[in-house]
């Protein structure tokens, strides 16, 4: 290949190293319109960054599926007792 300019894709003036630091602002809708359009341009030309963002989305989805923490039933019984005591107390 002699003419390299033919093969240089338009990465929106953002490096991949910059992209990975902007991804949360991107997903949160916090990028300025100007940066946002450069970010989108980079994605059209860079498959690894597309993969990276997909992995961030998958990470977030996985976090949302962690099983719930549960508290023992006895804790609820204790709270009910406290509640009843409070309910029967004269208004303070």
């Amino acid at each position: 290949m002699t003419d390299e300019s033919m093969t240089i894709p338009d990465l929106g003036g953002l490096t991949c190293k910059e992209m990975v630091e902007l991804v949360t602002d991107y997903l949160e809708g916090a990028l300025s319109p100007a940066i946002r359009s450069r970010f989108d341009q980079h994605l059209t030309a860079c498959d690894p960054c597309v993969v990276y963002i997909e992995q961030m989305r998958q990470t977030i989805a996985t976090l949302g599926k962690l099983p719930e923490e549960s508290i023992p039933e006895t804790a609820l019984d204790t709270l009910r007792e406290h509640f009843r005591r409070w309910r029967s107390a004269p208004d303070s």
Partner: protein
Amino acid sequence: MAHQADDDAGLIAALKRRDEAAFVTLVERYQGALLRLALVYCRSLAVAEEIVQDTWLGVIQGIDRFEGRASFKTWLFQILVNRARTRAEREGRAVSFSSLSDEAEAPGEPAVPPGRFRGPDDKWPHNWALPPHSWGESPDARLLADETMELVKRAIATLSPAQQQVITLRDIEGWTAEDVCNVLMISETNQRVLLHRARSHVRGLLENLFNDR
């Protein structure tokens, strides 16, 4: 979670009338999330459960003065955070909880190790040298496997307390940024910085796990 907020109002009114069923519904609704956040402050499950119990006592004691200017959820979690922080301070762990904003404003780790990118003099400076590989077309089975879930739980435990608080509420509990800012009393920007560092770290660990296969 958002759909619950509207519904809380009726329950709060009932709670003010000393309706036990309303109280129990609220406890059941928020208990899991309260415990999860309490566990960020203290590793001991027993202590975390105490903090949650204590929070509900705070609700009972304060509900008559709750005017609904903030959402019930915000108010409830502020009670928890206050109690948990006080307790952490008493146990001499105040330093690590000092200020979320300080941490967000200090330089953090890069999202991806610098060695994954090309150098400044490369033909493609600062672009991928070791790009990420797709986790597959339908990675759900891998992502939802028990092993993955365990790794994610452990990964969160290694984050700084500030990052843990943010990622727990945002991504595990699914809160909005606004609610998280209100409860943790940080700016939107700082919230985003902490979330970014936390998510990036967890992604990196998942990548290591999947690449090792």
